[in-house]
């Protein structure tokens, strides 16, 4: 082999070795990059779970509060209108004790099991009246103290609710209707109001399609056989609240149950609609913090 050929082979060998070395270094660099990327993704995924869990715990507590208060909600927000349906019962039972017990349980035992710091403030729910607020300023008030026994749907700042129609359905369990004093059914008002009554003795009556004035005052009362007190439905200007509805129960027997279903149609708010109880929830787990009201839903 000539000296010239030998030199060329040496040069080829060096180039081949260097190429292989570079290729392998590139492979190592790529492997290290890929491995670090997967690790980053895994950390991000696990960090997101903390947020998901916070939402789960908050939802769990909201469900428990709502269960004790016994107000069911169904809200459909579509085609320019929000249809709000609320169901409750009068007398509602005294929630003070049960809510205080729930608050203590959630802050103590439940908080420890979730390995989180949970602080709740139910003061505005245990003052004798539970307020459910809507993001468009509407308010559903459920008074349950002995001397205050009513549900009321109104604007929070006492303005006009803007409701276009109301469907009020009452069912009285354990009392027979003796007499009723209906409201004057208007024909030129701007709010369509329907009222249906029935009881466990088979009595029923309804007044449908009334066009009431939002600022007028309308009362519809029901009296019962051998019972003191009455059931009074107010619409319109209720205690200074415009276009509002109030159902007040003064029946002297607390065993008589009044089931109320209130359907309201309001213009759909541009920013969507969500609703919550006027109570504070604070949740902390490591770096995840949630400070908000007891959120019940959104539509």
């Amino acid at each position: 082999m000539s000296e010239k050929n030998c030199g060329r082979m040496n040069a080829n060998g060096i180039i081949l070795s260097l190429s292989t070395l570079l290729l392998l270094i590139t492979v190592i660099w790529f492997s290290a990059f890929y491995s670090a990327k997967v690790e980053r993704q895994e950390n991000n995924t696990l960090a997101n779970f903390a947020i998901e869990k916070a939402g789960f715990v908050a939802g769990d507590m909201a469900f428990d509060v709502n269960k004790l208060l016994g107000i069911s909600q169904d809200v459909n927000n579509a085609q320019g209108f929000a249809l709000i349906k609320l169901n409750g019962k009068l007398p509602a039972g005294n929630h003070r004790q049960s809510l205080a017990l729930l608050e203590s349980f959630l802050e103590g035992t439940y908080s420890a099991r979730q390995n989180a710091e949970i602080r709740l403030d139910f003061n505005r729910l245990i003052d004798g009246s539970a307020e459910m607020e809507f993001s468009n300023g509407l308010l559903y008030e459920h008074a349950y103290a002995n001397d205050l026994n009513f549900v009321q749907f109104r604007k929070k700042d006492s303005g006009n609710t803007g409701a276009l129609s109301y469907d009020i359905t009452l069912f009285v369990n354990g009392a027979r209707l003796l007499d009723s004093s209906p409201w004057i059914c208007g024909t030129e008002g701007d709010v369509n109001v329907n009222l249906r009554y029935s009881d466990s003795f088979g009595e029923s009556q309804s007044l449908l399609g009334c066009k009431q004035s939002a600022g007028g005052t309308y009362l519809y009362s029901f009296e019962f056989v051998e019972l003191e007190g009455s059931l009074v439905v107010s619409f319109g200007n209720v205690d200074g609240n415009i276009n509002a509805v109030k159902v007040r129960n003064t029946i002297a027997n607390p065993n008589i149950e009044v089931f109320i279903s209130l359907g309201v149609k309001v213009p759909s708010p541009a920013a969507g609609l969500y609703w919550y109880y006027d109570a504070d929830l604070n949740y902390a787990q490591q770096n995840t913090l949630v400070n908000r009201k007891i959120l019940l839903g959104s539509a």
Partner: protein
Amino acid sequence: MRNGFVISFDALAALLIFLVLLATATAYLAKAEFKAGSSLSLKETAMDCLAVLEESGKLEKAVSSDRSNELRGFLNTLPYSICADLRVYSQNDLNTPALLVLRPGCRQNFRESATIQRSIVVESAPNPLFYIAELRAWYRVAE
């Protein structure tokens, strides 16, 4: 002269360097395993199961009646690959479960599992009773 290979020291060194670099790359790639996905999926399954059981009233009913048939029935509707163990503890005794349901056909032979808790309110006079439901989920291990 017979044909043969000549292995010199520099060829051996080159081979060694090649193998070391290859092993390093393989080690990095072996480490790159995305485990969070399956763990997250188990946790989400456990959360969804508990939410459905509470909101459908099945948990409260089971605790009130001290019967776990419906809970077992629900766990049986989960995908075959998921195993679950549901325990309900009274707030007064967090060590002994008031109810214990293991999905039929599952054994607790897991390497990885996810555990989620949820509070339950059971209406009772004069005061409501509070419980904690704990659901552990894992992937079924083939035997």
